[in-house]
């Protein structure tokens, strides 16, 4: 059997199909309920996927996140409240369309162009990932060191308008990664004498805490009055979609391409992709004055961008083990647990697994159309689910899920502390994504730094003389120092 045939067999097993359907419903629901995000859906899935074979586990995450990013549009459109942060960029626009009686056009555009964007991102993933992997096979510790550092740098500058706070967040994440015996001398670092911390702090409880518990705390102290759902009959959501496709081909392409690129950059995910795409769409539109008044063009472009970002984020995650967004940060943890360690060798040793991931993405984006259509039909019921019942249940699920990974109550403590920390950090303007990337990549950064230092034997030029390492080094330093230099130059020019 060829690798592709094996991949088909893996993906089209009845169990896997069942998992994908269940994950779709879960993803659609989580995305549609404001306050529950796609990243949270992933974190909640991990304890369950822990008990699955690798492909169904990945299938669950891929499907649930694709669905959640789409269904996040629904409450944006009907309640002016984004279901996930990825829909926030065009929530006002979608709501304005609803006020004009065009709710089905906004929802339909969200659905159809989400699927198209997702498929575009998948196509780029299929083409780019193996090529990059072949290139990455030649990498040594020097290249990996710079690559990780570049990734972390991107995360700081992409996820925050306050790079200083992003940098602090990143350093705290790296510090958490130091905890335990996993270091060059296997010396117990920062464990405070606790035996439970010798193995390091569990990634999954940390993620569940940072992405789920913090949201529940935010819900508990949310003083805003509950929002009203617009009561408007919804017609055929597919009506007019072909017309939009013919009218805005450039916008769809540009949104998908930008989305994939932003997704692939470490740290920035679907939400930032949508914001950037919406801005680009307005800038290049022939009718920019219509933006904000219920104009579908921006929704078409940024709706495709946020779903293409999902697939884009998997490119660096699979090839280098560097997550493109917070969802793939969790995915990398899952891949390690499933013995599918990300890296270029994944493409050479187990190509069937990679092909299966491609197939999963394609299927997820195709079944999104019928399932999403159904979800829009029942959306009013979903939006009526009382959140004061839902949130406690989710939190208990988080607790049990954190416990389930290692069967220890210590992990529940880790989850709780991480949740409170994430809440306080966000409240004070420290972005969370860099911290997550720091936790995920800390070990890799240190390992490559230390082995490079040992190989270099005191000669630092080795970090810069290899061609690829030198290029990556130059890029990293440019991202660090260009903003400062530009600021100075501008000030000089102004003075």
């Amino acid at each position, binding site marked *: 059997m060829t690798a592709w045939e094996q991949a088909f067999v893996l993906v089209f097993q009845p169990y896997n199909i069942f998992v994908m359907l269940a994950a779709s419903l879960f993803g659609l629901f989580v995305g549609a309920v404001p306050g529950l995000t796609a990243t949270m859906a992933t974190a909640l899935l991990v*304890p*369950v996927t*822990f*008990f699955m074979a690798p492909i169904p586990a990945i299938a669950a995450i891929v499907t649930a996140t694709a669905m959640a990013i789409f269904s996040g549009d629904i409450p944006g459109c009907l309640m002016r409240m984004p279901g996930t942060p990825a829909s926030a960029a065009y929530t006002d626009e979608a709501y304005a369309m609803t006020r004009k009686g065009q709710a089905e056009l906004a929802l339909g555009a969200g659905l159809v162009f989400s699927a198209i964007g997702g498929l575009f991102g998948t196509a780029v993933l299929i083409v780019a990932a193996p090529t990059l992997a072949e290139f990455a096979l030649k990498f040594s510790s020097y290249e990996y060191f710079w690559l990780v550092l570049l990734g972390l740098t991107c995360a700081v500058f992409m996820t925050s308008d306050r790079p*200083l*706070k992003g*940098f*602090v967040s990143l*350093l*705290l994440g*790296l*510090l958490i990664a*130091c905890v335990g015996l996993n*270091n*060059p*001398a296997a*010396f117990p*670092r*920062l464990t405070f004498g606790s035996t439970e911390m010798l193995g390091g702090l569990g990634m999954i409880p940390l993620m569940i805490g940072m992405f789920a*518990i913090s949201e*529940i*705390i935010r819900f*508990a*102290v*949310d*003083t805003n009055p509950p929002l009203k759902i617009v009561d408007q009959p919804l017609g055929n959501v597919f009506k007019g979609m072909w017309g939009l496709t013919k009218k805005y081909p450039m916008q769809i392409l540009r949104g998908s391409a930008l989305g994939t690129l932003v997704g692939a950059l470490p740290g920035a995910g679907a939400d930032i992709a949508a914001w950037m795409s919406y801005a680009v769409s307005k800038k290049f539109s022939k009718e920019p004055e219509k933006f904000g008044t219920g104009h579908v063009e921006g929704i078409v472009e940024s709706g495709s961008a946020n779903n293409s970002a999902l697939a884009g984020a998997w490119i660096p995650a699979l090839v280098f083990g560097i997550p493109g967004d917070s969802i793939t940060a969790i995915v990398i943890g899952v891949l390690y647990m499933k013995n599918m360690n990300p890296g270029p060798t994944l493409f050479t040793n187990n190509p069937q697994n990679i092909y299966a991931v491609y197939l999963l993405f394609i299927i997820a984006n195709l079944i999104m159309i019928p399932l999403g259509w159904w979800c829009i039909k029942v959306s009013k019921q979903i939006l009526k689910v*009382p959140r*004061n*019942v839902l*949130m*406690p*249940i989710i*939190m*208990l*699920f988080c*607790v*049990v899920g954190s*416990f*389930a990974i290692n*069967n220890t*109550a210590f992990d*529940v*403590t880790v*989850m*709780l502390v991480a949740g*409170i920390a994430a809440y*306080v950090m966000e*409240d*004070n*303007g420290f972005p969370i994504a860099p911290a997550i990337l720091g936790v995920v990549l800390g070990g890799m*950064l*240190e390992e490559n*730094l*230390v082995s490079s*230092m*040992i190989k270099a034997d*005191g000669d630092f030029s080795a970090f810069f003389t290899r061609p690829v390492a030198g290029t990556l080094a130059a890029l990293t330093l440019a991202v660090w120092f260009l903003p400062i230099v530009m600021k100075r130059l501008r000030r000089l020019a102004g003075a």
Partner: protein
Amino acid sequence: MKLNDAVWGALLLLLSAALLVHVQSFPTIPGQKVGPALFPGAIAVALGVCAVLLVLKGLAARGAGGESAEWIVLDDWTRRGHYVFAFFVTIGVNIFYILAIDWLGFLIVGTVYLSVLFVVYGVGRKWVLPIAVIVTLGIHYAFYKLLKVPLPWGLLQGVAY
């Protein structure tokens, strides 16, 4: 609760200094220049630099006036008793879970955990207990039976299945 950047900077500076002192006690690998202290040491230095910058930023903001000039800005909810209560209960139930799970077991802890949260979040009284019991049993079944997670039975060890 928002603290002024200078306060964060001061706290982080303390952390950075404590780290720098602490990593001095890490052993070296014989014959190698780099050891387990290198990486956390580098983080501590970078953290120290950021901390100083944050202090400067915070002090500058204090001079400039406005909301960011305050040492501490309390969120809206901290002035309303109900929300403060909800905040502490949300965290408290988890501490209760951690402390009581081995003794009371999952079924009892889970039911209490959910009931308390439902009441505080304002779920209708007659629904509180039924939903709490059903959901606890459901989660227990899913994790204990289907996923084979050894959730503790505690006091109910006698009825364990």
